[in-house]
């Protein structure tokens, strides 16, 4: 903004002020998701918004779980001390029925959102922190540490992540665990699996950039190594992080559920976890009891769907080849402006590119610069 104010002006000449140069983007509009929302066009925008709505929904459910859920996640008796019926079909009292252990399915599904969100946050934050740090150091300094780390990261990366997470879960918690112990163990086992991804991405970017002129010059003027790492390298290598982050979060949920399903996750009395509930419902399904499996399962599908939709859209928008093509209306519009005979423009729009012009594309015409 200060740059705009200090523009040299000539008295009486206001052409510069009239010049409709694009104003500088505000901080808000440069935030990852907000920026993509503005670029997105047509059904790609729909995908992104659907994903964001789903994510927000689960986030809200996770935060307000105590208010939404009628019962506790490990509650098997009502207020008067009467035990819930086991495997009861959905009814007014238990709108989604009860499980074989007498838990209320609706309450457990709602509480499960909280477990899932906490586990994702722990897993993603830890793996980003460790992975990015290792990637920066390894890429910048090189040498034998770099080589050893790369070989280890490649070995871990190529190994099926769920199996690794199981091994980690057993090591951390010994297979069964308390509330936070269980969430932490699951979160950390997922962390170990995803560190290599961040490590590899950041390292590749750092190696590419470290010989570039601006790093050289920072080094020449005596900037401390730490500052070069955090200020120059880190800030320039985080371009692809939002995409990996969202894709990892969805994988983290699936891994958590997989751990729970195999019985290496969180104890049912410690926290509600969808994977565990599905594990208990395997025998129910054979008996035709569908409600214990369907509701937690659909919850997993929807939350993963939401996160994946956001991640996919970010990924597509980051790649100009995959970004939805500029709306047909816009392209034709620019031709119309320069065309000699304006009367042909309408028929041209209909004949040349039929079906390409969607209402969404038209609406977003003005948004794209």
């Amino acid at each position, binding site marked *: 903004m200060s740059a705009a104010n200090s523009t040299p002006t000539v008295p009486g000449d206001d052409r510069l002020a009239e010049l409709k140069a694009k104003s500088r983007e505000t901080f808000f509009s440069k935030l990852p998701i907000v920026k993509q929302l503005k670029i997105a066009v047509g059904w790609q925008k729909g995908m992104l918004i659907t994903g964001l709505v789903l994510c927000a929904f689960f986030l809200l459910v996770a935060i307000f779980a105590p208010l939404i859920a009628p019962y506790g996640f490990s509650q098997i008796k009502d207020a008067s001390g009467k035990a819930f019926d086991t495997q009861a079909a959905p009814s007014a009292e238990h709108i989604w029925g009860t499980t074989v252990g007498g838990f209320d399915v609706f309450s457990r599904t709602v509480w499960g959102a909280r477990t899932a969100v906490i586990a994702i946050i722990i897993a993603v934050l830890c793996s980003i922190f460790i992975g990015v740090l290792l990637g920066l150091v390894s890429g910048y300094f090189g040498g034998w540490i770099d080589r050893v780390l790369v*070989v280890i990261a490649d*070995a871990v990366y190529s190994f099926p992540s*769920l199996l690794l997470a*199981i*091994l980690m879960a057993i090591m951390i918690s010994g297979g069964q665990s308390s509330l936070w112990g269980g969430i932490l163990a699951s979160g950390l086992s997922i962390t170990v699996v995803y560190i290599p991804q961040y490590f590899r991405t950041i390292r590749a970017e750092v190696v590419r950039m470290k010989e570039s002129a601006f790093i050289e010059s920072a080094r020449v003027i005596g900037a401390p190594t730490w500052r070069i790492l955090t200020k120059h390298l880190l800030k320039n290598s985080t371009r692809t992080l939002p995409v990996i982050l969202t894709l990892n979060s969805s994988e983290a949920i699936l891994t958590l559920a997989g751990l729970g399903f195999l019985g290496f996750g969180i104890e049912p009395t410690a926290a509600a976890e969808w994977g565990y509930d599905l594990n208990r419902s395997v025998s129910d399904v054979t008996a035709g009891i569908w409600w214990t499996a369907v509701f937690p399962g659909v919850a997993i599908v929807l939350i993963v769907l939401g996160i994946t939709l956001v991640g996919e859209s970010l990924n597509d928008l980051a790649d100009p080849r995959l970004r939805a093509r500029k709306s047909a209306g816009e392209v034709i519009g620019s031709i119309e402006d320069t065309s000699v005979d304006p009367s042909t423009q309408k028929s041209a729009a209909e004949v040349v590119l039929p*079906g390409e012009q969607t209402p969404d594309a038209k609406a977003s015409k003005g948004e794209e610069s």
Partner: protein
Amino acid sequence: MASKAQAQTEQPQNKAVDTPENKPKKNRISGGFFRFVIVRFLLIIPTIFILVTIVFFVMRATGDPITAALGGRLTPQELQARIHAAGYDRPLLSQYIDYLGGLLHGDLGTTLTDNQPVITVLTRYGAATFELALLALIIALIVGIGLGRIAARRRDQAVDAGIRTFAILCYATPVFFLGLLLKLIFSVWLGWLPSSGRSSLASEMQFSRLVSPTGFYVIDALQLGDPAVLLDVLQHAILPALALGLLTAGVFIRLVRTNVISTYTSGYVEAARSRGVSEKRLLSKHAWKPALIPIITVMGMQIALMLAGAVLTETTFEWKGLGFMLSTYLKARDFVAVQGIVILIAIIVSVVNFIVDVVSALIDPRVRY
């Protein structure tokens, strides 16, 4: 993996350019290529070594296998005697070296819970997993390549949006939930297909008459020449293979679509189009082959993911394969068996990655040695 492969290929590449005896025509499969194959093959060893080391120490960090497997069933003195006899009270490092020594001689040890040589376990249950993975891969390839190409061709249209949604749903659904749904619909509600196991008891009896059973039930059924047995085996295989196959198909669809689009919109395809090549030919000849390189690379990695999916699928359908046994042995803390299975998986993953690198080097005309 890919970046590592590139780094590997670049080094010999420079050397090959320098040597004058490389004839330009025969350049592709020359001495340089074999050097690349050998170097890449040798890289398998550190990968497996690292994974073996991680698994060994992670497993030992939870205590000794005998206490875990038999603890509570024996008196402390007896337990101590057993531990001493098995050598688990020796320093960790010497145990590790002993284990590595055994590995080099192909000795994976004997399982603790059911006292079988680990090799026997691997061969007996490995066939079941391999059969499942192969059937799933066939389904994934048919669905993934078919739908992916359609989506790429009809890019940004309703068909494309529908296929993409389907792909994301495939990816977002945990394989065990999909398995439960399939079970619920096709075996419980409709009653068309069996809900679990690899074959019915009657077929199992037939198999025991075979002189040289392969463990692949489809092949064994063909050996018997009994159409009823073959039908029975296939009926059992359909649901697990579909669950695992669709999980993988989701990734394949995305992969094929993205890569075909990026070649489809590239300059040389545009040039071919302007020469009047038909859209059909453009897709099947011009755009498809270059798109194959990244597709094959990622497909190879998916096989590793499939192994993790197999653990979950096998547990859902009680398909007695390596994954099912792995989760059983893990619950019993039979660490010798777990180590054996994990090493086998590590070897499979490394070998598949090796093959992927070699194949993609063979296909890609840009890679020369």
